[in-house]
């Protein structure tokens, strides 16, 4: 019996340290990052206070995939040097890593010692320190004093300059009357932010262009234009300033539907994120000159948001224009937007004109001149389904903004279109896209459809191809055709090649000879550098049964 008890006791004694040893091997994962690269390895941002010790194995998880493994060879209080097993391995700055350390190494929580009431009672009276507080506006009661990093005020923030300079050339030559068209453009867009330390933004957009048309039997056309698209100074609309003002020439910010303005716009962000604003000034004519001084406008708007996330918002605005001193357009804009985070999006914008008895073509009343509505859903795999509705008629206004039409045409002209777009992945490298639409105008109705299959990794990992079949029942014609595209990407951009064939039938042509086959071939190359340079070039050719045309498009841009 004694021997049995002794054996059991001995067994317990033998197992006890083993259990203790097992307990000491309970580990915890400590995450770390590569702070810098050293000749012997990499320096990580965790050290002895985080439980690391010399000899610990560290596993690095590369952003591009794959792992690297190393061992701690030097240890600091808050950093450690890790020698990689593969001395040739490269681990980038900021790469995440992890190491498993025994729980026993981690600093135990210091128990709070309850004050001794007797000692407290006998302690001498000390002047009470006022409550510690953080004056930063981001700090709230109950938070640790160093809870937030102080946000930079505009006067603490460095000024910045961004923008782009671009040029393009389009040359078209056609066998139709030996016609040639040329269009060269040189543009610049600059944004200077916080230049004077007040959080302001100065914007300048310019374009110089020249176009010419040569037709041997007619007078040549040649035009050169310098257009200022923007020259404005904007200030405010930050968390430090609820009011926003913009002066000069600019696209109105509150409701861009009101167009470009030479004047001033004011906007204010209200509690909860609502916005209200107004603008006054002249509207440049929307053509190649942007000539101003003919159309004066005054506008106001209100934007309501459901909450600060602006998931759901509704806007309404009114604009009154005066053309050469005479009352012209009374326009109202109504807009609703819904952008939740679950892939859905919906928006509807309507342009509503109010006509008086002086508007003879339309007659007094209210008319929805234009509408754009879209509802769509897109999932994480890129599958999407969307529906679009557009309505367009021509407003009766004096401003040089619409085609010159007869009163009857002005009263009746309209175009409505409803379309559906569906994009779905069929396999890992294969997608299907379907677009179908119905249209209706004051004379006729018609439809259009396109079915496209896209294949990535075609003929190479960087290749992709697309084959489309399309058909359109248009206002004057019927068109059926097919389009094929192959693109191959590389480190700097992509090559693309397109071929399209369309068979067109002219409805009203009073002959059997109303068929017009049309071939189109396009080869293009675009190139982009990490330094902000972009270059695109493509050559396009059209071949009909009797005529041909060729086009060359060049585009060069430097952004900064």
């Amino acid at each position, binding site marked *: 019996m004694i021997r049995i008890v002794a054996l059991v006791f001995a067994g317990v004694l033998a197992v006890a340290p083993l259990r203790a040893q097992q307990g000491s091997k309970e580990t915890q994962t400590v995450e770390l990052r590569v702070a810098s690269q050293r000749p012997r390895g990499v320096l990580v941002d965790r050290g002895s206070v985080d439980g690391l010790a010399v000899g610990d194995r560290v596993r690095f998880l590369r952003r591009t995939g794959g792992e690297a493994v190393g061992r701690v060879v030097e240890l600091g209080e808050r950093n450690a040097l890790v020698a990689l097993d593969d001395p040739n391995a490269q681990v980038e700055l900021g790469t995440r890593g992890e190491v498993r350390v025994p729980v026993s190494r981690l600093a135990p929580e210091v128990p709070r010692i309850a004050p001794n009431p007797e000692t407290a009672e006998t302690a001498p009276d000390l002047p009470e320190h006022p409550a510690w507080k953080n004056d930063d506006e981001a700090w709230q009661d109950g938070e640790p004093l160093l809870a937030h990093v102080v946000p930079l005020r505009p006067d603490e923030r460095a000024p910045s300059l961004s923008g782009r300079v671009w040029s393009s050339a389009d040359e078209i030559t056609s066998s139709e009357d030996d016609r040639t068209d040329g269009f060269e453009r040189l543009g610049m867009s600059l944004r200077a932010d916080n230049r004077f330390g007040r959080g302001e933004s100065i914007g300048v957009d310019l374009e110089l262009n020249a176009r010419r048309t040569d037709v041997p039997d007619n007078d040549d056309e040649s035009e050169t234009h310098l257009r200022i698209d923007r020259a404005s100074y904007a200030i405010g609309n930050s968390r430090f300033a609820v009011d926003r003002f913009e002066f000069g020439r600019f696209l109105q910010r509150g409701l861009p539907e009101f167009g470009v303005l030479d004047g001033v716009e004011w906007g204010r962000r209200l509690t909860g994120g609502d916005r209200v604003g107004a603008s*006054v000034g002249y509207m440049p004519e929307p053509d190649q000159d942007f000539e101003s001084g003919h159309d004066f406008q005054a506008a106001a708007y209100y934007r309501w948001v459901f909450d600060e996330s602006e998931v759901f918002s509704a806007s309404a605005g009114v604009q009154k224009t005066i053309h050469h001193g005479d009352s012209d357009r009374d326009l109202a804009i109504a807009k609703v937007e819904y952008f939740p985070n679950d892939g859905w999006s919906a928006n509807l914008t309507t342009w509503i004109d109010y006509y008086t008895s002086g508007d003879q073509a339309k007659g007094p009343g209210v008319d929805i001149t234009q509408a754009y509505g879209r509802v769509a859903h897109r999932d994480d795999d890129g599958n999407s389904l969307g529906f679009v509705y*557009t309505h367009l008629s021509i407003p009766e206004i004096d401003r040089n903004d619409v085609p010159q039409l007869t009163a009857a045409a002005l009263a009746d002209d309209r175009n409505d279109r409803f379309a559906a777009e569906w994009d779905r992945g069929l396999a890992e490298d294969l997608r299907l896209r379907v677009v179908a639409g119905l249209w209706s105008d004051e004379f006729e109705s018609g439809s259009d459809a396109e079915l496209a299959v896209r294949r990535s990794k075609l003929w190479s990992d960087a290749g992709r191809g697309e084959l489309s079949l399309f058909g*359109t029942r248009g206002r004057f014609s019927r068109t059926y055709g097919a389009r094929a595209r192959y693109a191959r990407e590389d480190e700097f951009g992509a090559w693309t090649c397109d071929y399209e064939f369309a068979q067109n039938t002219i409805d009203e042509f009073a002959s059997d000879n109303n068929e017009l086959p049309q071939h189109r071939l396009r080869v293009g190359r675009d190139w982009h550098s990490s330094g902000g340079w972009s270059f695109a070039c493509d050559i396009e050719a059209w071949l009909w049964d009797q005529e041909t045309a060729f086009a060359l498009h060049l585009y060069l841009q430097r952004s900064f």
Partner: protein
Amino acid sequence: MRHTKIVAWSVLTLVLVWIAACVVRGPDAVKQHLWWSGLGPVLPHDTFPADCSLCHVGSDWQSLASDFTFDHETETGVPLPGAHARAACILCHNDRGPAGVFQRKGCAGCHEDVHTGTLGGNCEDCHQQNDWHPSEQRIRHDHTRFPLLGVHASTACHRCHPGAEVGRFVPTDPECVSCHANDLARTTFPDHFAAGWVDRCDRCHLPRTWTQAQQNP
């Protein structure tokens, strides 16, 4: 008289603006730190490593290390396609609002809509994200009531859309004479006006060239 009206409208508008500015609640009534619940640095740093020197150098918080890199997609789940990868962080992460609100709106969250809402928000239908240079808009025309037949396919956009250079493509009337009024006016043989041929050009002309036409039987 016109000048007087303009001045009157300007004064009236300014008065209304002034009244509106006075009536609505002023900035004193707004607790500015409640503008956005995540107020702090415009770039949330919650998940960043503890070692500030990984990114910041110098004596201020504006200077970043020359070898600073940030994999936006890996770290945040939001990819930066095309030129977005080269853009300065502050263009999206600024003190004018949370970047998440901008992102939710798509392109319109950061980019001005020079088309003034008339073409919708699917910018990528025409623009590509490396340089915003539009291309292949002609294909979009197949989804309208006026697909580009014959020489229309090789015609410069501004010929039919006078505001194309400033992003304005509508409204446009599809009737032939809307764009070909000058061609009609130049016609001498046969005299189209005398014959009353002033519309429905497509009865005699195919969109190859104006010189090829057949007389309406």
